[in-house]
C-alpha cells in the first residue's frame, strides 16, 4: 500500500479547458493507493451494529446462562441496587443486563489493555525502525500476514506505519463500547452480549497488530516450527550472577536490556529472566534469556531474593511488587505509563544519578519511560547492587515455620481466603510433627496469590512457608519451552487439509490464558500431552504455554521436547505471548481463504460462519483470570470458536450454552440447495466451564465436531469423544445419536455398540449439508 499523509493544495484561481477553480483548497488527511485488488467485503472497519445480526444468530443458539458473581449493582449512586429475583435497579436494569454489562466492562478493559499495549509498542517500533519498516511474519511461507486485520479492517498492512490507521479504529470502537456501559445506556442483555463480541473482535485485532509489529521489527522467530528451546523454571536461574527480572507484557525494556548487555559485552555475566508474557517475548528476542514461569511465580521469585533488579512493564504485574521487592532490597524499575506504581518519574534524569539513588541512597525504585534508559539503569544497578545484596532473601528458615505453626490460631481464614481452597492450616500443623511434606505439597497447587497471608490474623507469611517447605523441589524446577514461533505457515495449514478430511486429525485444541489453575499447571500439561498423543493439533500461548513446559514425562522430557513444534497432527505449538493468541484465530481464518478461497477482506460474517460450521477448533483457558482473557475469549466466540474454561471461569458471570434437547436450534442451510437441515448440536456450546480436567477433556473432544465433518472425520472425532467419556465417566455418552448423521460416521471399532444405541434411540439417517447459517450464501443452481 502506498500512502501519503497530510496533503494540502491551495489554488487561488485556475482556468482550464475543463473547469474553473477559484479559491480552491484541498486538504487530504491520507491518500491511499491500493494495490490490493481483492474486493472489499460488506463490513470494513465495522461499527457496533454492523455485525449485530450475526451476533444475534449466535446468541439465539448459544443463549447466555447467567451465574451472577454479585447480586448487586454498585456502579452509580442511585444504588446499591439489589437485582435478585425479578427486581430491577433504580435505573431500570435487570440482573441479566447487569451481568452482561459487567462482562462488557471487563472486555472493554481487556481490549483497551491490548490496544494500549499495541499503541505503545507500535509507536516505539516506528520511532526506532521507521514507519516504512515492512511487516514480515513468515517470509514466503506466510502469504496472509494479518488475517484478522484483513478480515476486520479490510486493509493489508505492509509496513509498521500502516498499523496506525488500525489503532485509531480500535480506539474509537473501544470508546463507543465503554460508553454503552454508562448508566441508562444499553438496556438489553442480548445487545450487551453483542457488544461483548464486538469488544472481543476489536481485542483480536489489537493482539494481531501488536504481535506482527514486534515479530517484524524485533527479529522474532517467523512462523518457525523449529524455534529454539529455552530454559524454564525457578531452578534454571544462575543465582551466582547478577539477575535482572522482567515482568509484564510489553517487551521494549526487556529487549533493550538484552541489547545493552550484548553491546557492552556483559551478556554472559548477567542473567535476564522473565515472568509472564514479557518472558515469552524476551526469549523470542533472544533465546538465551530464561523464563522463570507464569504470572503466579512473581511473589515466590521475588521473595527468593535471586533477582537483583525487578523491571516491570505492564499487565498482570503484582501491584505489591514494590513492597515485596523492598523486603529483599531489590530496586524496582517501572517502565510504563499505565503502571507507574507511585515512583518518581526519572525519565529525564541521568543514568548515573538514578543508579546512584537506587544503589547507594536506598531509593526503592524509579519510573523511567524510555526503554533504553531503563535498560541501562537496570544493568548498571544490577551489577553494582548484586555484591551488596548478596541475594538477600525474604524466606523464613524451617525453625521459623515451626514457630509460626505454634502461633497459628487454627481459625482457617487462610483456607477460606485461598482461591483453590488449599488446606493451609492442616499442612502447617503437620510441621509441628517435623513433617514439611504436606506444606511442600501445597506448592504444586498454589497459584501464588498470597491471599492466605493477608487473611492471617497473626500475620504469618504463609506463602513463604510453603515456598520454603518446597525449596528442594523448586531447585529442581528445570524445564524446556519452545520459543514462541508466531504465525502458522499457510503451507502448514495446506498440509493438514487432507489428513483432516481423511479423518486422521480430529481437531485443533488451543491451551491459552492465565495460570490460576485449580490444581496446578500439571493439568494443562497433561491435557496438552493427551491430545497431542491423540493426534490432535495442539497450540498454546501465554502462561498456559509455560505450564505445558513445566512437566516431564517418564523419560524426563518436557512436552516441547517430546512433541514436535509443527502445526500438524501430534504437534505442540507455542505461538508465543498473550498477543500471539491472534495467530490461533488467524489460523482458523486462513483455513477459509486457503481451502475455499473465501475472500477475507472485510468479510467477517461469512468467515465466522465458515469457521463455526467447518473448523473443528476449541480453545481452553484452564486458569481463567484476567479481563484480557475475557476479551480474548469473546473474540473467539464471534468467530465461531468455542471456549472451555476451568472451574474459576464460572466467575465470568455467564456461559453461552447450546441446548441439545431442542432440535429446532440445530438447523443450518444447505448451501447447495437452500434447504434447512438438522445437523445436531455441533458445536454444542460456545462458552462452557468444566469442573474437572476429565470433564474438560471429554468436552474438548465433543466440541471439535462440526456440521461439515466428512464421515471419516466425524468417525475419528466420535471415537475420541466416546473413548474419553468411557475412560473418565465409565459410560457411553448419552447423546451419540445426535452426532451420527449416516452410518459411515460410526467409528469402525465401535460399530456394534453404537448401532445398538442408535436403534434404541430411534435414530434416522440424515444428509451432510454444505452448512451455513447465512441464507445469502446459498448457491443458486446454474440457470436459475
Amino acid at each position, binding site marked *: 500500500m502506498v500512502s501519503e499523509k497530510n496533503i494540502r493544495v491551495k489554488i487561488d484561481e485556475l482556468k482550464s479547458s475543463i*473547469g474553473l*477553480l*477559484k479559491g480552491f*483548497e484541498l*486538504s487530504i488527511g491520507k491518500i491511499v493507493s491500493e494495490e490490493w485488488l481483492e474486493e472489499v467485503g460488506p463490513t470494513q472497519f465495522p461499527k457496533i451494529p454492523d455485525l449485530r445480526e450475526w451476533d444475534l444468530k449466535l446468541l439465539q443458539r448459544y443463549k447466555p446462562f447467567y451465574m451472577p458473581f454479585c447480586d448487586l449493582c454498585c456502579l452509580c449512586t442511585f444504588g446499591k441496587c439489589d437485582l435478585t429475583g425479578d427486581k430491577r435497579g433504580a435505573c431500570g436494569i435487570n440482573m441479566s443486563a447487569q451481568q452482561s454489562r459487567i462482562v462488557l466492562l471487563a472486555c472493554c478493559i481487556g481490549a483497551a489493555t491490548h490496544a494500549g499495549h499495541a499503541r505503545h509498542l507500535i509507536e516505539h517500533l516506528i520511532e526506532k525502525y521507521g514507519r516504512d519498516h515492512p511487516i514480515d511474519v513468515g517470509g*514466503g511461507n506466510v502469504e496472509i500476514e494479518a488475517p484478522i486485520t484483513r478480515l476486520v479492517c479490510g486493509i493489508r498492512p505492509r509496513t509498521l506505519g500502516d498499523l496506525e490507521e488500525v489503532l485509531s479504529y480500535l480506539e474509537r470502537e473501544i470508546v463507543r463500547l465503554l460508553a454503552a456501559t454508562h448508566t441508562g445506556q444499553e438496556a438489553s442483555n442480548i445487545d450487551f452480549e453483542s457488544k461483548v463480541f464486538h469488544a472481543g473482535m476489536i481485542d483480536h485485532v489489537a493482539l494481531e497488530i501488536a504481535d506482527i509489529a514486534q515479530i517484524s521489527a524485533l527479529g522474532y522467530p517467523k512462523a518457525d516450527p523449529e524455534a529454539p528451546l529455552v530454559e524454564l523454571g525457578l531452578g534454571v536461574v544462575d543465582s551466582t550472577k547478577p539477575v535482572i527480572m522482567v515482568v509484564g507484557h510489553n517487551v521494549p525494556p526487556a529487549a533493550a536490556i538484552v541489547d545493552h548487555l550484548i553491546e557492552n559485552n556483559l551478556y554472559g555475566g548477567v542473567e535476564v529472566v522473565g515472568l509472564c508474557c514479557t518472558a515469552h517475548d524476551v526469549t523470542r528476542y533472544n533465546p538465551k534469556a530464561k523464563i522463570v514461569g507464569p504470572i503466579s511465580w512473581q511473589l515466590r521469585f521475588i521473595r527468593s531474593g535471586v533477582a537483583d533488579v525487578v523491571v516491570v512493564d505492564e499487565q498482570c504485574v503484582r501491584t505489591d511488587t514494590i513492597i515485596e521487592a523492598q523486603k529483599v532490597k531489590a530496586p524496582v524499575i517501572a517502565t510504563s505509563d499505565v503502571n507507574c506504581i507511585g515512583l518518581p518519574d526519572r525519565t529525564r534524569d541521568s543514568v548515573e544519578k538514578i543508579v546512584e539513588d537506587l544503589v547507594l541512597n536506598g531509593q526503592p525504585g524509579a519510573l523511567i519511560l524510555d526503554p533504553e534508559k531503563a535498560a541501562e539503569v537496570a544493568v548498571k544497578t544490577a551489577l553494582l547492587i548484586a555484591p551488596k545484596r548478596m541475594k538477600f532473601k525474604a524466606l523464613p528458615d524451617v525453625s521459623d515455620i515451626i514457630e509460626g505453626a505454634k502461633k497459628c490460631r487454627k481459625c482457617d481464614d487462610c483456607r477460606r481466603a485461598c482461591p483453590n481452597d488449599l488446606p493451609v492450616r492442616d499442612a502447617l500443623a503437620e510441621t509441628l510433627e517435623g513433617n514439611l511434606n504436606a506444606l511442600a505439597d501445597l506448592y504444586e497447587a498454589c497459584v501464588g496469590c498470597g491471599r492466605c497471608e493477608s487473611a492471617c490474623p497473626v500475620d504469618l507469611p504463609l506463602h513463604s512457608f510453603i515456598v520454603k517447605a518446597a525449596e528442594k523441589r523448586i531447585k529442581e524446577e528445570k524445564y524446556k519451552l519452545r520459543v514462541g514461533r508466531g504465525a502458522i505457515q499457510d*503451507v502448514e495449514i495446506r498440509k493438514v487439509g487432507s489428513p483432516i478430511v481423511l479423518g486422521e486429525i480430529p481437531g485443533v485444541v488451543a491451551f491459552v490464558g492465565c495460570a490460576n489453575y485449580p490444581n496446578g499447571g500439571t493439568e494443562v500439561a497433561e491435557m496438552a500431552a493427551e491430545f497431542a*498423543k491423540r493426534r490432535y493439533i495442539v497450540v498454546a500461548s501465554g502462561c498456559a504455554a509455560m505450564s505445558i513446559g513445566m512437566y516431564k514425562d517418564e523419560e524426563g522430557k518436557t512436552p516441547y521436547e517430546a512433541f514436535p513444534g509443527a502445526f500438524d497432527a501430534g504437534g505442540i505449538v507455542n505461538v508465543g505471548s498473550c498477543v500471539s493468541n491472534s495467530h490461533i484465530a488467524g489460523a482458523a481464518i486462513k483455513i477459509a481463504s486457503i*481451502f475455499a478461497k473465501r475472500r477475507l477482506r472485510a468479510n467477517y460474517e461469512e468467515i465466522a460462519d465458515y469457521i463455526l460450521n467447518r473448523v473443528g477448533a476449541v480453545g481452553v483457558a484452564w486458569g481463567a483470570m484476567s479481563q484480557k482473557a475475557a476479551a480474548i475469549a469473546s473474540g473467539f466466540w464471534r468467530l465461531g470458536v468455542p471456549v472451555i474454561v476451568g472451574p474459576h471461569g464460572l466467575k465470568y458471570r455467564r456461559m453461552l450454552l447450546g441446548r441439545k434437547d431442542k432440535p429446532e436450534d440445530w438447523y443450518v442451510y444447505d448451501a*447447495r440447495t437452500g434447504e434447512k437441515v438438522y445437523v445436531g448440536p455441533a458445536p454444542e456450546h460456545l462458552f462452557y466451564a468444566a469442573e474437572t480436567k476429565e470433564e474438560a477433556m471429554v468436552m474438548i473432544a465433543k466440541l471439535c465436531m462440526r456440521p461439515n465433518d466428512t464421515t471419516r472425520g466425524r468417525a475419528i472425532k466420535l471415537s475420541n469423544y466416546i473413548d474419553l467419556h468411557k475412560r473418565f465417566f465409565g459410560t457411553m455418552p448419552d447423546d451419540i445419536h445426535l452426532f451420527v448423521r449416516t452410518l459411515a460416521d460410526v467409528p469402525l471399532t465401535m460399530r456394534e455398540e453404537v448401532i445398538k444405541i442408535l436403534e434404541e434411540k430411534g435414530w434416522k439417517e440424515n444428509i451432510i449439508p454444505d452448512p451455513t447459517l447465512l441464507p445469502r450464501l446459498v448457491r443458486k443452481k446454474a440457470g436459475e
Partner: protein
Amino acid sequence: MSMFADIPVGVGEVYSGERIRWQDTYVEFGGLRVQYKFELVKVRKMDEVVDGKITIIGPDIKDLEPQKSYSLGIFIEVAGSQVEEELEGVIERRIHEYTNYIEGMMHLNQRYDIWIRLSKKSFEKGLNSFHIIGKIYQRLFKSELPIIEKIQITFITDPEKVKEMYDYALKEYEKRDARARGLKDEEVDAFYGCTLCQSFAPTHVCVITPQRYSNCGAISWFDARASARIDPKGPVFRIEKGECIDPVKGEYTGVNDVVKMKSGGEIQRVWLYTAFGYPHTSCGCFEGIAFYIPEVDGFGIVHRGFAELTPIGVPFSKLADSTAGGRQVDGFHGISIEYMRSPKFLQADGGWERVVWVPSAVLERVKDFIPKHLVDKIATEKDAKTVEELKNFLVAKGHPIVKRWEEKAKAEAAAKPVEEKALPAVAAPEAAAEMAVPVSVGVVGGFRIILKNAKIRAERVKIVREKGK
C-alpha cells in the same frame, strides 16, 4: 457390548497415534534389524477359504524371547462374490490401520517393509498370541468391508518359511503394480469422484482416473473404487465416463455432468489432462502446483515442501493462493506427485516436454517417469533462480521448449501499458493550462466543473488501480 469385549487390550481409532519406543517394546517384527518380512492379501475363490481360520507357522508371540526382532509374514486370504483381485492392494493397506487400532501395537510401512512393535504393557495385559491379533483383523475386515464373506489369516514366524513366502510376495506386488500402472483411462468404463474436500472447499470435485490420482495424492482409482463400493452413499462415488469428447484434453460427458451437479453448477466442464481452458479444479491440499511461466511458455512445478522462491519470484504459498479454492484457474493447476508419473500428465499441453523447472526433491522422486532425454534438460532450483537464468539454462541444454519459442517467434513487442500514476502532480497548479482536474478519478470529460471558494476536506481519499493497468 463392544465387539472387542473378549480382547485383553483396547481396540480403537484413538490408539492410532501411539508410538512405541524400543525400551517399551516386548517384541518387534520386521523393521531394520530383520531382512525378511511382508504382509500380503490374496483374493481367492469362495471354496478356497475357510472363514475364521487362523494359522501360525513357527513360534507364537508368547514363545518368543522378549526384546528381540523377528521375521514375520502376514498372509491374508479373502473371498466374496464381489471381491475382485484389483482390491487386494486396498484391502492389504487396511492391515496398517487395523494394527495401529490395537492398544500397544505400532505398525509402520507396508508390503515387504513392515515394522511392527508390541508393547510390554499390552503383552502383560494378555496380548500374547497371533490368534488374538488375527481375531481383531477378521472382525474389523468384515465390519468395514462387508463384501468380504470369508477370511483366513496365516502368521508366519518361522524364518525359513517367511523367506520362502517373501519371494512369492514380491512377485505378487510386482504383478499388482504392473497391472495398476498399465491400466489406462481408456480401458475402464468408469472414473471415480471424491468430494471429501467439499467440507472445506464446497465447489471442488476431484475426478480420479486410473491415470490421474486425486490431488492430495492419497486416493488412487483402486482406492476410490473400493470406497465407493463399501459406502455407496459416501463422498467417493462412481462416475460413468460417458462419451469421450476430446481424448487429448480429456473431456468426457459423464465427467462434465457429474461435476456440474456435485459443484452445485459452479463448474460446467472439465478437461482432465490440461492446465488451460477448463482445467481440473484445485482444492487446498494438493501436493504440488503446475504453473505456467509465460516468459518461457512452459510449466514450472512446485511442491508443498519447497520453501524457497520459484524462478518467477513467488513462493509455493502465493502460487497456492492463486490456485486453490475449487476454482478453474488458467495456467494454475493443483496436482499430486503420483500424477506426474502418469503418461496423461499435462498431455494436452505437451506433457513433460513442456515442463521447464522442478524442485530437485520432486525431480528425484519422479525422474524414472520422465522421458530419458529430458531429465537433465529440466532446471531445478540449483540451476535457475530467476526467469532469466531459467531461459539461459533451457537454451544451453537444448530443452525442446526452445524449439517452441523459435516456432512461435512472432513479434512479441506489444507496447507495455502505461502505468497510471497514483496521484497526478497537484503540486504545481499554475503550470499548464491544459491541466486535468487534480482529483482525476472518474472525470471523463464532456462537462465542466466550476468550483468557487470551495473547500474540500477528505479524511481519506482512495485511488483504486484498475485491473490490468
